[in-house]
């Protein structure tokens, strides 16, 4: 046991019985019958749903630890295990220090009671003593910015007010370990910033924070360490930058895979006559017509790194091998993260072959990596030759960021006093 760690999970697994999840309650009768027959409770292996599998994690004291993962990956179950709401099926959970969990705002709020009265019950539930609450009451009320509403019944509050009050209580508990389940985005912009500042204060005070979030920016900005949970297992654990990168890559891949399922694909044996071979997700089509020799050029020839102001040229050869109807070429430009930047469709001639050139006198894109996807087909949905993720280039622009680098000029006139 290391005392420098605030939370240590060792080989933790948690399973739920399916009946629990489907809320099929055992009835008194069935239980009695079972007891009379002296049978063991039937437990088919299929009725067990694992929520966490052999998870080992340690959160060092004084650090902020972020957890990411898709919905249903076991993040909340993990928090509940640390809190002690659930007991682990296997493994051990050690917690060193007074813990406060913000799993849901406003635990125990009673609608008929005033905000002030609810501060007491909620505070006690979260682990404060009456004396502590009394000492911090004014501070809590001030933080919530409820003003005179504090003495009105909670049921008259707007959802924003409700959340503000709850968050105000929760952040004044002053625990050694704080567990947070994505509730930072509470209320309006102003309050969200205030909440973030409060979190920062916790961090500076050397408190340990375990944070579950979907917001990767928050994760990178606020966490010292992070882990990515997927299907109940720790996929990657380490620095937030690495975890976010791995998570992003996996999400992009999953989205691409989901997209492909909707793309009618030619049977694999059909291969193009030229260029890279057909490969699911990268090149496919009926290949009745093909694109070949796709090249990206700068001013003087093939080029892969551009500045924002540079000229850009895309070259491709087109040839049809049978009768094709109304061929057209769709060109899409997207970032390596998958964001579509621009898409255009151009009709092609009925001739057997053609040389295609796309000219952009000035590229006008911001710093980043880009992919050019080409799709040769027709308006009726036929796909002859699709190139996805095969052609790419990069833009390096030091003085700006974002997707676009439009033509612009600054005029700055210094004024004499």
């Amino acid at each position, binding site marked *: 046991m290391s005392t420098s760690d605030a939370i240590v999970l060792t080989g933790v697994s948690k399973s739920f019985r399916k009946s*629990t999840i489907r809320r099929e309650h*055992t*009835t*008194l009768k069935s239980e009695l019958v079972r007891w009379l027959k002296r049978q063991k409770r039937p437990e088919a292996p299929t009725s067990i749903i694992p929520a966490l599998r052999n998870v080992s994690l340690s959160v060092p004291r004084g650090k902020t630890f972020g957890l990411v993962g898709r919905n249903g990956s076991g993040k909340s179950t993990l928090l509940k295990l640390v809190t002690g709401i659930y*007991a682990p099926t296997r493994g051990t959970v050690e917690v060193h220090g007074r813990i406060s969990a913000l799993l849901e705002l406003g*635990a125990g709020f009673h609608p008929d009671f005033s905000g002030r009265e609810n501060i007491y019950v909620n505070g*006690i539930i979260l682990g404060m*003593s009456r004396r502590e609450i009394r000492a911090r009451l004014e501070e809590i009320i001030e933080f919530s910015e409820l003003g005179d509403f504090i003495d009105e019944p909670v049921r008259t509050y707007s959802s924003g007010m409700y959340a503000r009050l709850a968050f105000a209580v929760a952040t004044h508990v002053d625990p050694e370990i704080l567990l947070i389940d994505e509730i930072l985005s509470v209320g309006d912009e102003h309050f969200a910033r205030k909440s973030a500042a409060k979190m920062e204060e916790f961090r500076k005070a050397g408190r340990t924070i375990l944070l579950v979030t979907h917001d990767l920016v928050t994760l990178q900005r606020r966490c010292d360490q992070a882990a990515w949970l997927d299907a109940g297992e720790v996929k990657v654990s380490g620095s937030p930058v690495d975890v976010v990168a791995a998570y992003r890559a996996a999400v992009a891949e999953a989205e691409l895979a989901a997209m492909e399922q909707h793309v009618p694909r030619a049977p694999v044996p059909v291969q193009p006559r030229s260029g890279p071979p057909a490969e699911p997700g990268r090149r496919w089509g009926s290949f009745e017509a093909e694109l070949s020799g796709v090249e990206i050029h700068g001013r003087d020839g093939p080029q892969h790194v551009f500045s924002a102001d540079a000229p850009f040229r895309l070259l491709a050869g087109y040839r049809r091998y049978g009768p094709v109807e109304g061929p057209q070429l769709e060109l899409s430009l997207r970032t390596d993260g998958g964001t579509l930047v621009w898409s255009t469709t151009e009709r092609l001639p009925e001739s057997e072959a053609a040389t295609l050139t796309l000219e952009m006198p000035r590229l006008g894109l911001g710093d980043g990596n880009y992919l050019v996807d080409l799709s040769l087909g027709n308006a009726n949905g036929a796909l002859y030759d699709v190139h996805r993720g095969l052609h790419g280039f990069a833009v390096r622009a030091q003085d700006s960021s974002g997707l676009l680098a439009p033509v612009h000029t600054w005029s700055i006139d210094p004024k004499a006093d």
Partner: protein
Amino acid sequence: MIRNLRELWQYRALLWNLTQRELKARYRGSALGFLWTFVNPLLLMAVYGLVFGVIQRNNIPHYTYFVFVGLLPWLWFSSSVGSGASTISDRRDLLTKVRFPAQVLPTTVVATNLVNYLLSLPLMVGLGGLVGIWPDVHALAFPVVLLVQLVFTLGVTFVISALNVRFRDLQHIVANVLTLWFFVTPVLYIPNAVPEPYRRLYLISNPMAVIITSYQGIFYEHRWPHPRALVIVALGSVVLLAIAAQVFERRREEFAELV
């Protein structure tokens, strides 16, 4: 059981706060407010007084007062067990979101109804005064009987609230059993009305009978509770509470998953 009670003690502020809130919430927004606490037992007393004191005339003197003495502690018990049954299964909001000892919930129900009982005692004493029966030295035994009933009620409520999480039928069964239990408990009649051969069995098998007759002894007949019977019930209640705490402890892990 010790651990169970120690946790309760640690969370006494929460217990107190929830109890307070329960009491306030019950009558908040109603015109009569807290007076409703008295209306319900008074009305019951009036009905039973009319039916068994006037229509089905019996020979118990000051019958309405007699009924009231037994009715108040019975209501404490039956309301606690009745609403205690679903107290855990209804608090999904708390159990799945924060960690706290679940035994606070059934205890809150028992405590709330205890406060209700204690608050209606002055009314009972006043009613006794009207017919000339004031509490005397025998009232010294009252705290003892109160404690025995507290332990017994806690025991029953703990078990039922814990089991009801898995067996939801229980709360409906309990509601009906309580109605029957009321009539086999000497609130409306004196135990002597039970035929002699069964009287002993009747008192042994029903702890509430011993407890209620003890109250009636103190406030109505001015005699001490039957010591041996009370000691047996007291010991039995402690054992019950110990078992209840055990059952509670073993079921506790499944609460958060089942509610």
